[in-house]
């Protein structure tokens, strides 16, 4: 492997986060961007690009492109919103990297914000949407398949039937994530969790229990991307060595429940570096549900097909395991801000700010995002090293 980085992420900004209303998405986005720019050691006048990602469940004007004016970012050469649902954060990194390498911009700030949790402190209703699995507009709503959990549970059950994955395998993902969250003071769910606790937790939509589901919060995450320079090494810089997308599409004869575009993206991602999934040293993956995390291990080549469940039971991804994954607790126990959560944790680790959960195998950090019902995939390989 002899590659130079494509770009570098040099600042991370995280707004206050809460399970109560603390501001609009637009307000939280502004705070996160301000913090990211300051973290990068830059001024607003240094920024010449702004990309925005919103939840697919909100109207676009909740975070309009006028966010530029809120922040007084003037004379931008790049300003757009990315519509890749849970893959948007990694898609922003992809587009930004291309823009920087194409000399269309020098310092681009990317932001995701969402406020799904209302005054009652519940986030689930925000996701009471019908996800299109059939291809006919309105069909799932008419048939009663309401809620992201139901659509993903359908995919999980298919994997269980085809590969013998069990509820204990799903639970092992939740338990491993909680063990990491226990070491993260910013995680929302930190109490110790055992597999028995998991098996006693209430079923929501079988095979999913409440502990298989993400824990949504209100908040925002922003990061600053710039050109890769060797002089950045040793400072707060996460070098982007590969970035890729994979969107398989749906047709007849498919198994979109487990054969997804992630494996396409993985092939593109790893080809640039001449590596395979087994070379990845740590991973921060999108896991809106336990099954999505389990499947990620297989789709991104970190485990063989059908073997992720057993590997999880053996502690592969947990603290002390061979492959640290979702070291902040992920979406289930850390906090759910769609694809922004894995990116924030990857940067926290590579910047060396993870304190009690700090890992040292960040040389090849895989970061992933998923949109739709396993339809949209984007990922990157980040590293503290400018050259691999």
């Amino acid at each position, binding site marked *: 492997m002899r590659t130079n980085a494509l770009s570098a992420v040099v600042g991370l900004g995280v707004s206050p986060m809460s399970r109560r209303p603390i501001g609009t998405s637009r307000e939280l986005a502004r705070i996160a961007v301000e913090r990211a720019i300051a973290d990068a050691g830059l001024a607003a006048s240094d920024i010449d690009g702004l990309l925005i990602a919103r939840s697919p469940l909100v*109207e676009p004007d909740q975070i309009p492109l006028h966010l530029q004016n809120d922040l007084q970012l003037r004379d931008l050469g790049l300003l757009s919103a990315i519509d890749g649902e849970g893959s948007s954060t990694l898609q922003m990194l992809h587009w930004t990297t291309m823009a920087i390498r194409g000399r269309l911009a020098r310092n681009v700030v990317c932001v995701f914000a969402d406020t799904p949790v209302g005054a009652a402190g519940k986030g*689930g*209703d925000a996701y*009471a949407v019908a996800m299109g*699995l*059939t*291809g*006919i*507009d*309105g*069909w*799932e709503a*008419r*048939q*009663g*398949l*309401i*809620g992201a959990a*139901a659509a993903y*549970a*359908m*995919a999980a*059950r*298919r994997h269980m*039937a*085809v590969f013998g994955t069990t509820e204990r395998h799903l639970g092992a993902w939740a338990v491993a994530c909680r063990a990491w969250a226990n070491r993260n003071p910013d995680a929302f769910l930190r109490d110790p969790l055992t597999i028995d606790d998991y098996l006693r937790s*209430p*079923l*929501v*939509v*079988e*095979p999913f229990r409440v502990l298989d589901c993400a824990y949504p919060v209100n908040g925002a995450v922003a990061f600053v991307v710039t050109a890769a320079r060797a002089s950045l090494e040793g400072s707060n810089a996460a070098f982007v060595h590969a970035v890729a997308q994979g969107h398989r*599409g*749906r*047709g*007849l*004869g498919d198994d979109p*429940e487990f054969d997804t575009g992630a494996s396409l993206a993985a092939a593109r991602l790893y080809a640039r570096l001449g590596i395979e999934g087994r070379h990845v040293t740590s991973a921060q993956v999108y896991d809106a549900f336990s099954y999505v995390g389990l499947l990620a291990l297989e789709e991104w080549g970190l485990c063989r097909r059908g073997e992720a469940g057993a590997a999880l039971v053996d502690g592969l991804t947990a603290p002390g395991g061979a492959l640290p994954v979702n070291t902040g607790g992920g979406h289930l126990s850390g906090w759910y801000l769609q694809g922004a959560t894995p990116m924030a944790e990857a940067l926290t680790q590579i910047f060396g700010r993870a304190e009690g959960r700090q890992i040292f195998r960040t040389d090849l950090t895989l970061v992933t995002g998923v949109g739709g019902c396993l339809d949209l995939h984007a990922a990157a390989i980040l590293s503290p090293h400018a050259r691999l």
Partner: protein
Amino acid sequence: MTIEPGRWSRTFTDAVEAGELRLPFDPATGRPVSLHDRRLDGLGDTSAEWRPARGTGVVVSHVRFHRRYATTAGEPPILALIELDEGHRLVAPLIEIEPDRLAVGLAVEVADRPPQGPLAFRPRHDQR
């Protein structure tokens, strides 16, 4: 955010509401066309041929609701992803079945139903 159904979706759902399950086929090849594939929606040069379905298939996945959003409180608790004999996949409630008999691979058929409401399936007669 409600999406206004396009011609392709309306063709399918109008038939269901009329009491018929019809599926798209390519008139040139005779092969089934995915419900996701709208190239033959009739706005271009060629239209799909919507043939009556046999109404039988197998369960490829299933979920059972234990909690419901307020908007769907009255829906059946078990929904399945069904692969019809023609190769198309549909999400549908599964009725007339005990939860412990639920299984991937179960042969199912369209259930008798009122004109409005979900298109439900039930275990095929020889499986009941």
